[in-house]
């Protein structure tokens, strides 16, 4: 699934396991992940999956129970090793931004730059604030800033010390939708310009698909799949992985003669003969044609136009309803008899 990449990863996590309380179950369980410089990785998963805990473990705010976290060959966390957070050069944007209320925007951004001489520090602060377009708010205190401005100060503060990796914990979750789109674009631009490895936690699939260079799907403490957004969308490794990124039709089948039979037709399956499989079909992979053309006959029961796409609900002859998606220009109306064809690009077969 991974595309060819010549660069060595900046951060490598192998078999990481974190237990938050003695005796409690593991919040992060045998997770492996690699972060690359200059690339933004989105960590996507339902709440409680252990995303924040993994982020805190990378930053050194939680200890690993087993496994290792290495950065450019240095072990940050591992057996008997725990580099304290202040020695790791991780930039973290916390979910509540965690701006220091007693310091203004400039002072917040300059907090991690104490080691620099005065002039250089000033220049770096100014540069960081300029990159998030907040030069005019430099002297405002956190409570005087809007939510979006607070987020940008938090971003500038984390970036100012030129960290080797940026970790963002649901950085847009507290903001309203429109603001979120603008901010997310700016954040990505700033992150890419900085050239660091970046990990953004999100639970919004669209957000992840739109913004990240790479997506890692996390469930119950483990990364279940990672890779390029399109690869993940088109070729999920499991039903759960498929559902995290969008709607999917699932048909259970048994492999027979290298094929798996579904109500919409047979699809090629590489699994062992006679093994149980699940056929996952994205709504875009079901084409709706006028009745009578070759394909699976069905009755359209609903047509919902949503922006650029139209979503059809079609009733198959066995009474099962499937969802198909097409450009909004598609003319089919509810009540019509139609034929459904499969586009195999949108179909994947996984072990059941």
């Amino acid at each position, binding site marked *: 699934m991974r595309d060819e990449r010549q660069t060595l990863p900046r951060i490598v996590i192998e078999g990481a396991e974190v237990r938050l309380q003695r005796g409690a179950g593991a919040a992060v369980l045998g997770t492996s992940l690699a972060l690359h410089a200059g690339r933004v990785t989105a960590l996507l998963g339902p709440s409680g999956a252990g995303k924040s805990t993994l982020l805190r473990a990378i930053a050194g*705010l939680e200890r690993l129970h087993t496994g290792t976290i290495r950065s450019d060959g240095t072990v940050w966390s591992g057996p008997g090793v725990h580099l304290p*957070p*202040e020695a790791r050069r991780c930039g973290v944007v916390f979910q*509540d931004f965690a*701006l220091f209320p007693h310091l203004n925007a400039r002072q917040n951004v300059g907090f991690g730059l104490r080691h620099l001489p005065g002039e250089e520090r000033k220049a770096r602060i100014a540069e960081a604030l300029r990159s998030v377009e907040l030069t005019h708010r430099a002297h405002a205190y956190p*409570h005087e800033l809007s939510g979006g401005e*607070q987020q940008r100060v938090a971003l500038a503060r984390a970036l100012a010390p030129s960290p080797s990796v940026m970790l963002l914990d649901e950085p847009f979750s507290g903001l309203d939708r429109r603001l979120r789109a603008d901010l997310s674009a700016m954040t990505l631009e700033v992150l890419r310009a900085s050239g660091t490895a970046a990990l953004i936690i999100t639970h919004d699939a669209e957000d992840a698909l739109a913004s990240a260079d790479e997506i890692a799907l996390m469930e119950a403490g483990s990364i279940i799949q990672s890779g390029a957004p399109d690869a993940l969308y088109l070729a999920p490794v499991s039903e759960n992985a498929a559902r995290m990124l969008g709607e999917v039709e699932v048909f259970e089948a048994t492999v027979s003669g290298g094929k798996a039979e579904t109500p919409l037709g047979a699809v090629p399956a590489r699994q062992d003969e006679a093994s149980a499989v699940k056929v996952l079909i994205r709504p875009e992979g079901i084409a709706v044609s006028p009745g009578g053309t070759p394909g699976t006959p069905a009755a359209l029961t609903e047509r919902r136009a949503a922006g650029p796409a139209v979503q059809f609900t079609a009733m198959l002859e066995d009474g099962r309803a499937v969802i198909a998606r097409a450009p909004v220009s598609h003319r089919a109306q509810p009540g019509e008899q139609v034929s459904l064809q499969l586009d195999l690009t949108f179909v994947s077969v996984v072990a059941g």
Partner: protein
Amino acid sequence: MAVTGPVTQPLRRRIGQTGFRPVWLAALAGLLCAGPLIAVAWLAITGTWTDYLGHIYQTRLAGYLWNTVIVGLVAACLSGVIGTGTAWLVTRHVFPGRTVFQWMLALPLAMPAYAAAYGWYDLTQAAGPLSMLPTVRGPLGAGLIFGLVFYPYVYLLAREAFAAQSADAYDAARTLGCSPFQAFTRTALPMVRPAVAAGLALVVMEALADYGTVSHLGASTLTVGVIRAWAGEGSTPDAARIAMVLVTITFLIFMGERALRRRARQTSASGHRRPFQRQRLAPLAGIAAALICAAPVLIGLVIPAARLGWRALSTPAATGLWQAAGHSILLAGLSGLMAAFVGLALAYAIRTKTLTGRASARIASMGYGVPGAVAALGVLIILGGFQGWLDGAWRAMTGSPFPLLLTGSVIALLFAYQARFIAAAIGPSESALSRVTPSLDAAARTLGARPLTLALRVHWPLVSSGVALAGLLVFVEVLKELPATMILRPFNMDTLAVTAHNFAADERLGQAALPAVLLVLVALPPMVWIARQITASERQRDAIAPSDAFPGLAE
């Protein structure tokens, strides 16, 4: 989230109109609180000038000021260190007795400063059992005593601020290159600074308002100057002039604290907050922490109270003590009830969001900055003038002076207590009432509750604990109050505080011990309840935070 917009606006207004809108009462309370101070200022300007003031200026004024500064500074330093240190221990660590120390550390507030002074002076004087220690006396000794009995103000406010901090700020500091110690000094400590400053302002204000301690330990502050001018010289205008100096200093402290707070409001920027994981201390360190937390309670409350108790047991009791105790409880109880009622009314007035209501509450809450001696002086001036007018009118009608003496009456005392302590009753009530949101009112009304039902079934259950807290706070304060009681009490009406002070002033500490101990015994149970209530924020839904319970801090 806020209910706004053109649709809900009329609804809110209509409900406000049908609800309890005691703006007139609030205005009256504001006037009550501002009256004495205005009277003092007026007399200071218009009163006849005598050469007493010139004499004071040449001889004692510098000493008064010097003592005031030393007493204030020592009290502030000591209470700052004790209060902040213990607050940090109980909020960030786990050690034996932590949950008990949480509220126990507030108990020295039940100890009148002068009682602690009697106890410690008696212990450390030449013939006392601890005579190897330097005798507790002079401005240094008085400052120490104030630091020991008033540090709970700092402790309670700092504890609340520490507890409110999000662990994310600390983590952020760590990821930005701070060691644990640096993260504490660069983020946690500056973030509690406004709370500590607010606590220190209260400590210094209480120290400057005190009369019993400084007069016993020979550290004549400006308050002593006011009382000497009034009692010794019989010159109310001169007393008023010295009082104005005192009030100016107090208000400067409050303004400074307020300005500091405005610059950096210490609220967490957004709602999400990750609480700190308390650090479990190793057994030895845990015992050390427990000892450190026990020390202020022992030194500020237990040891001096025990010494007084021992002295009381070995000295024949003076007569009239039970009567004095009755007077103390009656006055404090009446004042507590009145203040709780007026405080609730003021809280409602603030809720109406009218200018008069809010301004009145603001003025009333400034009364706390007026030292008791000054408030009493103001009441004396106002009632004296009123008495003169009544006498004149009565004489014109009947040919004899008005049969009731207003100055030096229970009314005068209650007036002065209210003027000074209503402020303490506003905060808790307002905090409790803030839980009654407009949408809660609207919900109850749409479910068929009429205004009275609404008040009884929704408002009262939500505010009752706040009102009780307000009443008890004022009860304890009035119980301990000495200078105002001394100045205004009726001729034959002694209270425990006055009795104790009079014996102590005659160097009869043995006799002063019993009334002082009785005071502590009466003040302690309500103080335990108050302390548990205002430190319960983690345990209870209807707890009231210290920053809401103490005046001068509520906006």
